[in-house]
């Protein structure tokens, strides 16, 4: 059964979604089977969350929101995990 889950969050890291957080996010996304995509909330351009270069290239800065969408068997878990990482400010 394929679930489709979408949610959004605001990035609170001072440096935004720069190199280190992007590495963490893409690594985390890769641990799920679902297709996971991200987009800036104000711009409907979706990229693969499992690709470090794509995540980094969004160049999301502090205070900006991202939308997260997952499609697949573990979609719910995936979105929750990514939201958790964002909330923990990427453990920076």
């Amino acid at each position, binding site marked *: 059964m394929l679930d489709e889950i979408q949610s959004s969050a605001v990035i609170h890291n001072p440096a935004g979604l*720069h190199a280190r957080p992007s590495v963490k996010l893409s690594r985390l996304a890769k641990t799920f089977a679902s297709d996971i995509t991200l987009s800036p909330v104000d711009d409907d351009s979706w990229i693969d969350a499992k690709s470090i270069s794509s995540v980094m290239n969004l160049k999301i800065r502090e205070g900006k929101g991202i939308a997260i969408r997952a499609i697949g068997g573990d979609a719910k878990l995936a979105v929750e995990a990514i939201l958790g990482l964002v909330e923990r400010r990427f453990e920076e």
Partner: protein
Amino acid sequence: MKPETVFSGAAASGGKAFGIAAFWGSSDSSIVERAGGTEAQERALLAANIQRAKHALATLAYAQDKDAKDIIGLQIALLEDDTFLEPVFARVKSGMKADIAWETHLDQEIDNYAGSEDRHFQSIAHDLVDLKKRMLRLIRESPHSQWTSVQQTNLILLADDISPSDLLSIDRAALSGLALIKGSLTNHVAVLARGRGIPLIVGCPPAILFISNGSPILLDADNNIIAVNPDGNRQINMSRPPSKKPASPRIIHKADAKGSHSENRTVNICLNIDGPEIIQNIDVSAVDGIGLFRTEFLITDGQLPDENEQFEIYRSVLDWSRGKQVVIRTFDFGGDKVINGLIADQNVNPFLGVRGYRLSRMYPDLFRGQLKALARAAPYGNLAVMIPMVTAPFEMSEFKSEFQDVVAELGHQHIRCALPKLGMMIEVPSAALTLDRFDADFYSIGSNDLIQYVSAVSRDTLQLDYLADAWEPSIYRLLRECVSVASAKNVPISICGEIASLPKHIPNLLDCGIRSLSVSPGQVEVVRHAIGQWHRRST
């Protein structure tokens, strides 16, 4: 005519060569352009070097703090990101060379981040520059991507440094001489150059990398100079013409040697070899056998020969030796001889880490394969097998029982085999100091490592060459001790390190009681001469 320019350095392997300037792995300059292969080859080259870069970065990150790990982590993550890599492969598919495709894509990405308004994103550009250079270096320094815009013979190779395996990957027929900015007088590159009769000058000024590609060069390692656009007089003074075929080391027959035949018989001279090729043109009657066959150099293109191939190689050397002893050393990887993929080299100090026999123990299948090949070759001649880097007596007993197991196993399968003499290298001070505790059929002193372990002077550090002779009193005392222990136990002892090939050390070695020297093929003549002089002096 262009004016002559002369550079100087330190000769690590003597001789003169005339040829043209060629460069190795000049990834940051455009001195040479790498010639591309087919699309499939370029794709494979790119894919292989992405893996190599990942491996190297992971090794680099291993011992670092968290910040450093994160910085390197970005580069590793990019190399694992298909979205990031896809445009590079697409360019290769459209006919671009692997290195140019990589460079073009990375430059675009670098511009993308460098132009960012946010300084955090700008800084990513630095990481990308780092990654770009790393990959370019790997691709351009791959053994298969060399010698493209230069002619294929009489090359004088100019480089910052070169690894032993890279040196071995160069066709000997193409290479006339070698000049390095780094390098050392005693490391394995120096050993290999001497063994192959390739003149080598180390410690050259960095300016040698700015010599024009293809310039005529006289490399005179007998006088420690590299002359670019050498003037006529210098060229006339060349003692030998540029050789186009592999120089076979000149070994004069015992009877022709200076000093009479009889007096030289008291000291054995054997050969140090890296493979069966070098002895093809050598008459076995001129020497007393093989004192050291370094089997780790059998590796070609990152592949070791399998058991059957090894068996054929070992047997061919035994055939050549016609009953004279052949000492084969088991694989001695580690230290400065690293084999890709065999070990994730996490040693902070590789010379004190997993190397030699220690490494063989970690790869029992590889090691057993070698022992089987040796046991099968043993009936074809007078074979002796030794292990490198022995620290404790149990290693020697373990090796013996492992070999006996192999012989028993082959025997059960009715495969012809025999148990050779089993010996050990004396390289580690703990072995040299308590040799009486080590039960072996023979001992062979590996003086290169012993010297560096006893003196705590790395042999790869040219800046420490001022300590080059500081080891002498301690080593000679130790060797005298080893010889007396060996003779009390009635166990043959020989020396196969570089000092046995250098005439100035030979009187001291003989004074210590050593009567068996194993030397580079190119050095037999001078060693025999030095022995003759010692005899005359001491009688």
